[in-house]
C-alpha cells in the first residue's frame, strides 16, 4: 500500500512539473537544443530549479539515515565511467535531439491521446526491451565460456 501511495504521489508531482516546465512540448525542447538558431533558454530554468531543490532535498533526506517506508536507501553503486555509459548517453542524445522527447515527457504526452506519441513510446519500450534482453543473455553466459 505504501508503495502505491509513494509512487502515485511522486509520479503525479513529477507529471505536474513536466507539464508546467515546457518539457512536454518537443518544440520547446528542440528550441533549447538549437543553440545556433532562435535559442530558447527556458530549460535552463527547469534544470536550475530542479537541481537546486534536489541538491538541498537529498541532503536533508540522506541526513535522516533511512527512508520513511523502506529499510534503506537504494542507490546506484557503480562508479565506472565505461563504454555502456558513454555509448548509451550518445545514443540517447541523438534520439532526444531528433524528436525532442525524453522518456518522462513521452509518457506524460500519452495523455494527449495522439497516435504519434503512442508509436513513439512503443518504439522507446522496444529499445529498452532489446537492451535489457541483450544484457540478460550476456549475463547468463556461464563464466569461462568465451574465454579461450
Amino acid at each position, binding site marked *: 500500500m505504501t508503495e*502505491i501511495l509513494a*509512487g502515485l*504521489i*511522486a*509520479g*503525479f508531482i*513529477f*507529471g*505536474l*512539473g*513536466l507539464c*508546467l*516546465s515546457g*518539457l512536454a*512540448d*518537443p*518544440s520547446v525542447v528542440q528550441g533549447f*537544443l538549437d*543553440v*545556433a*538558431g532562435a535559442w530558447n533558454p*527556458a*530549460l535552463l*530554468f527547469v*534544470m536550475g*530549479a530542479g*537541481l*537546486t*531543490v*534536489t*541538491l538541498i532535498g537529498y541532503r*536533508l*533526506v540522506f541526513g*535522516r539515515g533511512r527512508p520513511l517506508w523502506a529499510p534503506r536507501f537504494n*542507490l546506484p553503486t557503480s*562508479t565506472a565511467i565505461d563504454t555502456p*555509459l*558513454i*555509448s548509451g548517453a*550518445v545514443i*540517447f*542524445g541523438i*534520439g*532526444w*535531439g*531528433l*524528436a*525532442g522527447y*525524453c*522518456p518522462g515527457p*513521452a*509518457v*506524460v*504526452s500519452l495523455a494527449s491521446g495522439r497516435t504519434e*506519441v503512442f*508509436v513513439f513510446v512503443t518504439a522507446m*519500450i522496444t529499445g*529498452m526491451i*532489446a537492451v535489457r534482453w541483450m544484457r*540478460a543473455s550476456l549475463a547468463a553466459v556461464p563464466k569461462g565460456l568465451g574465454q579461450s
Partner: protein
Amino acid sequence: MHPFLSAAIGGALIGFSVVLLMFLSGRIGGISGIVGGLLPPKLADNWRLRLAFIAGLLLAPLILNAVVGFNGIGAPTVGFAILIPAGFLIGAGSALGNGCTSGHGICGVARLSPRSVVATVTFMTVAVVTVFVMRHVI
C-alpha cells in the same frame, strides 16, 4: 505566466518529486529506470511502485487540464519516419547508459555522481549537435 517562471516552477516540482520518492521509498526518480523495471525479461519486485508512479504521471496532465484548461503537452515536431527511430534510440540509449534526463540529469547530478555528470554532459552535447545538423546542415 512568463515561460521562464513556469519553467522554474516545473523544475522545482520535478526536484520535489524525486526528493519525495527518495524520502518515502529510498529510490532514484529516473523515468527510464522506473519504466525499464516493468519490462521483460524480468519484472522488478517493486512493480507496484513503478506502475503507480506511471499512473501518477498520466493523471497529472488530465487533472491539470480539467482544473485550469491547460496541460502543456505540445505537438510532435517530426513525422513517423523520425519518431520511430528516435523512440528506439532513447529507449535503447537510456537502458544501456542506465539513465535519462531525470535519473542522470537531475538525481545523479544532484548526488554529485561522476557517472551521471559525464552522461548528462554527453547526451546534452550530442542532442545539441543532432539538432544543429538537422536544422542547419541538412
